């Protein structure tokens, strides 16, 4: 029955091919795409049932399609793997993905190129499934770059527009996303090479069908190996490999310092932001680390760095979200921040907690994005929050759903985010013994609640600031998908409740992580965090819905700018990282490109050396021409010289 697992990615692939080559009408495209993802979801459930039948020491289903590459001893299979970790990810991808597809049927109605949209959405689901279902790192990398490609295609969906709100050029944003991702991908490739060179295989686990062994169980073998960095000393091999993976994760999961592509990715349609840039693609980095946990568990691994990056990103992302004026950009930075939580969790070795938050975040962030899309769609495609206000009357359902999502994100009891976020914070304080990390994460949680409160206050409360805008509630498809996600956001905590530990047990065969024992200390910490967040949230709401509300005007600065000045400006531009990259990388690169082309290549090499040689030869020829002046007497003189030379030669030799 193992073959059933390849049905899971096959359905979206078929959907993509049909939509790309055959389908012409919008309605058919949308329904086909959604049905395919739905079928994929069903296949996932079926595969999970089959998985239950596998023995718990090797709880996985594998199916090798063919041998992908074989050169001498380098062998890689094109094969799929389905184990509990995969199952959890696949459920998220197909479940949330399917709901978003259905939502898109309503949202993308009347769009300029809907068929292409649905084709690429299906392609994305396929690529993401390949990523989580690959049985070796190279195939994972195929999915990894595949989702990057789909991100490029979907961000650039409106490629013919010069600018979309809040002033981003979609084509530029798409290329930027691809290139920044590629920097991470290069690190990933380097990690792949290093792994193959030292382990002799890229397969995760043993593949008896092709006779390839797996490397994850061999992690301990290379424990002592060092890499010679010449003048920089020696580096443990494991540190090198995990560091390279960390760079890859930084790119794909938008961590500091490679997160600049994610806010600009909001140029894509909102369902794209929900699916790709909230629930799935950006979480691939977390998956990568969890899958490779045996490497990261090694004492010499780069796990501490992972923690540092995660915590930094969480805080930076949250502070940037506070000052955003575009409804989607707030959520974009929020995603950056929440990904930081997940990355911090896996950096501490709390893989289950990281996956827990990945799942709950997938639910409530998708909900938030879809609800934001509902708002945008409902008011006529405006995204600037300064234009909104008082929308809770015009869009009541959206309003309620948005609040649910915001509460979940802020980590308020008993919504989903509370459980997963606090588990990470508890882990930081008690198990990892990094009080600094825990405090930063708690502060971040407070800031998170603040900006969500701010957003709700600005959008749904106060008076309508732009008289031209009249909101109307969304259609059936959009509403019911949001409701489904909202249910998930409310009861999502059940996935891994303290005491029940369903997720932990389910993932036990893969991660072997001990269950968390809940102490009173944890309870107190959680209560403190929640109270802080609730307070911050209330503060944010009150400031923007009541106190400073009269000062919010269309086109004017945010009211808090007056009090925080440059600090606010810094937060608004994402702490200037983008600006820095422009100055340090983009412009010099361009200038150097022109320099190399004109000065070095054209002049130095081509003109001086190549043409110079040619000109030199021509000049030599000209010089020699002078000897042929046509005068007989000169020739006679030449004869004489020649004769003298020859005679002298023979005379002196003899």
């Amino acid at each position, binding site marked *: 029955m193992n073959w059933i697992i390849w049905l899971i990615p096959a359905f979206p692939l078929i959907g993509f091919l049909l939509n790309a080559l055959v389908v012409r009408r919008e309605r058919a495209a949308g329904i086909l795409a959604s049905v395919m993802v739905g079928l994929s979801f069903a296949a996932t459930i079926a595969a999970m049932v089959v998985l239950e039948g596998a023995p718990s020491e090797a709880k996985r289903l594998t199916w090798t399609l063919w041998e992908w590459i074989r050169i001498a001893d380098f062998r890689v299979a094109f094969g799929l793997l389905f184990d509990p970790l995969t199952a959890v990810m696949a459920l998220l991808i197909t479940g949330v993905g399917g709901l978003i597809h259905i939502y898109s049927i309503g949202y993308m109605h009347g769009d300029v190129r809907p068929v292409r949209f649905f084709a690429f959405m299906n392609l994305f689901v396929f690529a993401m499934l390949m990523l989580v279902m690959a049985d070796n790192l190279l195939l994972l990398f195929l999915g990894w770059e595949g989702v990057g490609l789909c991100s490029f295609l979907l961000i650039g969906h409106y490629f013919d527009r010069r600018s979309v709100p809040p002033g981003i050029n979609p084509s530029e944003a798409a290329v930027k996303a691809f290139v920044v991702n590629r920097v991470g991908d290069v690190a990933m490739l380097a990690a792949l090479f290093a792994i193959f060179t030292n382990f002799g295989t890229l397969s995760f686990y043993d593949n008896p069908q092709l006779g390839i062994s797996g490397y994850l169980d061999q992690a301990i073998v290379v424990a002592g190996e060092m890499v010679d960095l010449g003048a920089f000393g020696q580096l443990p091999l494991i540190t090198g490999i995990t560091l390279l993976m960390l760079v890859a994760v930084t790119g794909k999961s938008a961590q500091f310092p490679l997160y600049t592509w994610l806010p600009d990715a909001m140029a894509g349609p909102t369902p794209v932001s929900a699916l790709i840039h909230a629930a799935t693609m950006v979480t691939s980095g977390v998956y990568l680390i969890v899958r490779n946990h045996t490497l990261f568990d090694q004492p010499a691994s780069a796990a501490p760095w992972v923690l540092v990056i995660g915590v930094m990103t969480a805080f930076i992302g949250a502070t940037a979200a506070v000052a955003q004026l575009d409804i989607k950009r707030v959520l974009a930075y929020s995603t950056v921040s929440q990904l930081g939580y997940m990355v911090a969790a896996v950096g501490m070795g709390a893989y289950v907690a990281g996956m827990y938050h990945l799942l709950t975040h997938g639910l409530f962030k998708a909900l938030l994005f879809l609800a934001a899309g509902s708002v945008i769609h409902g008011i006529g495609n405006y995204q600037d929050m300064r234009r909104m206000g008082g929308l809770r009357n015009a869009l009541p359902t959206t309003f309620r759903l948005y609040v649910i999502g915001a509460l979940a994100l802020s980590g308020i009891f008993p919504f989903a985010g509370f459980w997963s976020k606090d588990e990470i914070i508890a882990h930081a304080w008690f198990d990892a013994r990094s009080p600094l990390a825990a405090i930063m994460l708690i502060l971040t949680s407070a800031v998170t609640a603040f900006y969500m409160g701010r957003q709700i206050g600005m959008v749904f409360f106060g008076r309508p600031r732009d008289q031209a805008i009249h909101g109307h509630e969304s259609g059936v498809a959009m509403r019911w998908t949001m409701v489904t996600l909202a249910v998930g956001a409310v009861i999502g905590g059940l996935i891994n409740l303290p005491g029940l530990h369903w997720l932990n047990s389910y993932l036990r065969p893969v991660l072997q992580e001990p269950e968390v024992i809940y102490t009173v200390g944890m309870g107190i910490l959680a209560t403190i965090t929640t109270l802080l967040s609730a307070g911050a949230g209330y503060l944010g709401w009150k400031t923007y819905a009541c106190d400073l509300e009269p000062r919010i005007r269309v086109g004017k600065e945010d009211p808090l700018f007056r009090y925080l000045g440059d600090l606010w400006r810094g937060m608004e531009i994402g702490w200037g990282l983008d600006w820095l990259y422009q100055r340090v990388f983009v412009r010099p690169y361009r200038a150097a490109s022109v320099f190399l082309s004109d000065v070095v290549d054209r002049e130095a090499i081509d003109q001086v050396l190549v043409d110079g040689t040619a000109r030199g030869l021509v000049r030599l020829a000209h010089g020699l*021409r002078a*000897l*042929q*002046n*046509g*005068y*007989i*007497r000169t020739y*006679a*003189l030449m004869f*004489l010289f020649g004769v003298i030379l020859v005679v002298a030669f023979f005379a002196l030799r003899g």
Partner: protein
Amino acid sequence: MVPTSYYILLSALLFTLGVAGVLIRRNALVLFMSVELMLNSANLALVTFAMARQDIAGQMVVFFVIVVAAAEVAVGLALLVAIFRTKQTTDVDEIHSLKG
């Protein structure tokens, strides 16, 4: 007995005069005469050695040289006449249309 070296010296002198004539004089007829002079100096050298070594082969070669010289003069003067018809001059410096 006149020493052989005197003859050879005379031959060398005549040869040098011939070369000088070829290099310096511009009149084509004088050029030919200088070439004749060079050839005759070679003849003198040959006969001298034939006599010194009592080998008749040297004198045989002289005949060859005389024949070659005659042929060369014939052809050369014919060319000169042809060129004179077009160029109206016997100055060799005027003939440089084969310039490279």
